């Protein structure tokens, strides 16, 4: 098992190298002269040359690349011009907010989409099946920022159930003492139920927005996987042997249908991490997505590059985790690998 894990870890390396090369190229094709940009608008040619030498931009590209990788290895992502802080500490302090939102969105989506997909497959052609198809088609057509705004209008303006979309926690509360960085978990660890509720309230709408967005592929894949498993020989045998229907579906069919669903998660994460940026903008969520958007508007490039790199590395790691999970679920993969 350890050797398999090691082999899988190695397969992630080409992806990581690709990601680093691409982000490096993105830093080097900045519009205009990077050195002139960092030196500021009032800089003399001499000052620009100095900055160029300091940033290593007068060196040949391969040398610049080595320097770039060395900086990354030391956790140096540059400094944000707007916050004045090193990009890496900005990102580290904002990452938990994004992670909490994205993961909760995914959990909600799974909790709805998987049962929906199973029911649609079991009762093929029924009302639930049609509902599943509508959800799947509508879900991929809805722009995620638009869904978010509709939810805000309905649940904040009309019904008044949700708080204003203005961040992670109402200003009257102080955040729980930091343990995991996830407010929900930290507030529970602090045994403060009132604070837990205050942390949950602003989280529900953005998480629901992300969930609506990622429902579609999960539901569609669950349905398709269940359909093909339900048509297979071992399910027919199980049925012929007189096993109870729920037993056939849950124990026999569902476990096998989970495999393609887990594979789809990789694609779902690609969507989620992108949608996250838009949702954070709509709900003024203090995560890394809104950090990158603010930096983009201020033409502050170091945070944007740090953000792209962080997201890509996270995504590679998530895919790796999904691969490993796949091996845990399906023993056959372990043997073949």
């Amino acid at each position, binding site marked *: 098992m350890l050797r398999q894990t090691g082999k899988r870890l190695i397969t992630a390396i*080409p992806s990581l190298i690709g990601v680093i090369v*691409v982000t490096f190229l993105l830093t080097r094709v900045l519009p205009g002269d990077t050195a002139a940009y960092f030196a500021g608008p009032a800089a003399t040619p001499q000052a620009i040359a100095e900055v160029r030498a300091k940033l290593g931009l007068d060196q040949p590209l391969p040398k610049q690349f080595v320097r770039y990788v060395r900086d990354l290895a030391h956790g140096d992502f540059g400094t944000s011009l707007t916050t004045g802080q090193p990009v890496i500490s900005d990102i580290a302090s904002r990452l938990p907010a994004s992670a909490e939102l994205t993961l909760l969105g995914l959990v909600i989506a799974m909790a709805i989409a998987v049962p929906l997909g199973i029911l649609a497959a079991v009762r093929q052609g029924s009302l639930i099946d049609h509902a599943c198809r509508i959800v799947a088609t509508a879900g991929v057509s809805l722009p995620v920022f638009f869904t978010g705004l509709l939810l805000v209008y309905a649940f904040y303006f009309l019904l008044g159930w949700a708080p204003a979309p203005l961040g992670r926690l109402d200003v009257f509360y102080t955040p729980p003492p930091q343990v995991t960085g996830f407010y929900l978990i930290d507030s529970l660890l602090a045994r403060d139920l009132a604070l837990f509720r205050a942390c949950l309230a602003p989280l529900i709408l953005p998480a629901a927005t992300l969930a609506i967005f990622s429902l579609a592929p999960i539901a569609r894949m669950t349905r398709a996987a269940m359909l093909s498993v339900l048509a297979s020989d071992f399910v027919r045998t199980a049925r012929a042997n007189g096993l109870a229907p729920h037993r056939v579906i849950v124990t026999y069919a569902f476990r096998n249908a989970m495999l393609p669903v887990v594979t789809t998660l990789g694609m779902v994460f690609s969507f989620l991490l992108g949608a996250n940026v838009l949702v954070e903008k709509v709900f003024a969520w203090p995560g890394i997505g809104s950090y990158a958007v603010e930096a983009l508007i201020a033409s502050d490039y170091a945070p944007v590059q740090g953000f792209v790199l962080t997201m*890509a590395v996270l995504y590679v790691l998530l895919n790796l985790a999904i691969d490993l999970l796949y091996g845990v679920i399906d023993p056959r993969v372990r043997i073949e690998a």
Partner: protein
Amino acid sequence: MSGAMRMEPGAVAAPAPPAKQTSLLSHARHVIGENPVTGLAFGLFVLLALCALLGPAIAPYDPLASDVAAKLQAPSLHHWFGTDEYGRDILSRVMVAARLDLGIAIFSVALVFALGGVSGVAAGFFGGWTDLIVGRIADTIMAFPLFVLAMGIVAALGNTVTNIVIATAIINFPLYARVARAEANVRRDAGFVQAARLSGNGELRIVLTQVLPNVMPIMVVQMSLTMGYAILNAAGLSFIGLGVRPPTPEWGIMVAEGAGNIISGEWWIALFPGAALMLAVFCFNLLGDGLRDIVDPQRRT
């Protein structure tokens, strides 16, 4: 030799096309009959195309003209979709924006169709180094969350509409390259390719005249399936302030402009452009599904 070759497919094909065409037509009719939603999607498409082509001519107001006296008006007979905070007519802005939104999507899809199609077919047909390089490029793009990569590309290349088109094309590249590669790979040693090779055709000629035409139908379906995604992606980028700049009417940026007003109850500013966006994406997704059913019945889901 080449004369015989030219004659041979002609002789076989002569009776075939009419039969194939009628069956395709009846199949199309069958698909639309079974799935009236595809017909609805086609109607929507015509409406969108009309707006894109004639938008500025048929819009009731000037999309850029502000009228402070008539600002933030709810939908009424004068302004069907209401007015925004500068008093601009939202219906006109939504109609005029169709050209820009569809234009970005069409150009990016055409770009990736050419790039992905050519490199995918080359990879699938020639294999070896070509396959390795194309595969590596596609894998590297897929290693990023795609919208995030698009943000990074637009930030690096410069904040313009052209770069939104390029970024949208790049993030769709792996999809096209893979489909084209798989289709070309299957046909690399197919009977008709072998026959063409035996008749003395060069490899390049075989790719262009035998393989490429066979890969086309699937690629066209792919185009209409990714149009919706391209529109969503471009609108998402302009929603966060990339590419299109105000006061240019564009659906994504119009939703962004109306986002602040949602909290105070002026829902129409964001709703109508958002709904237009949603309908456009919905329309292309349905059309793509319908087209796939017609072209490639085996891949139906």
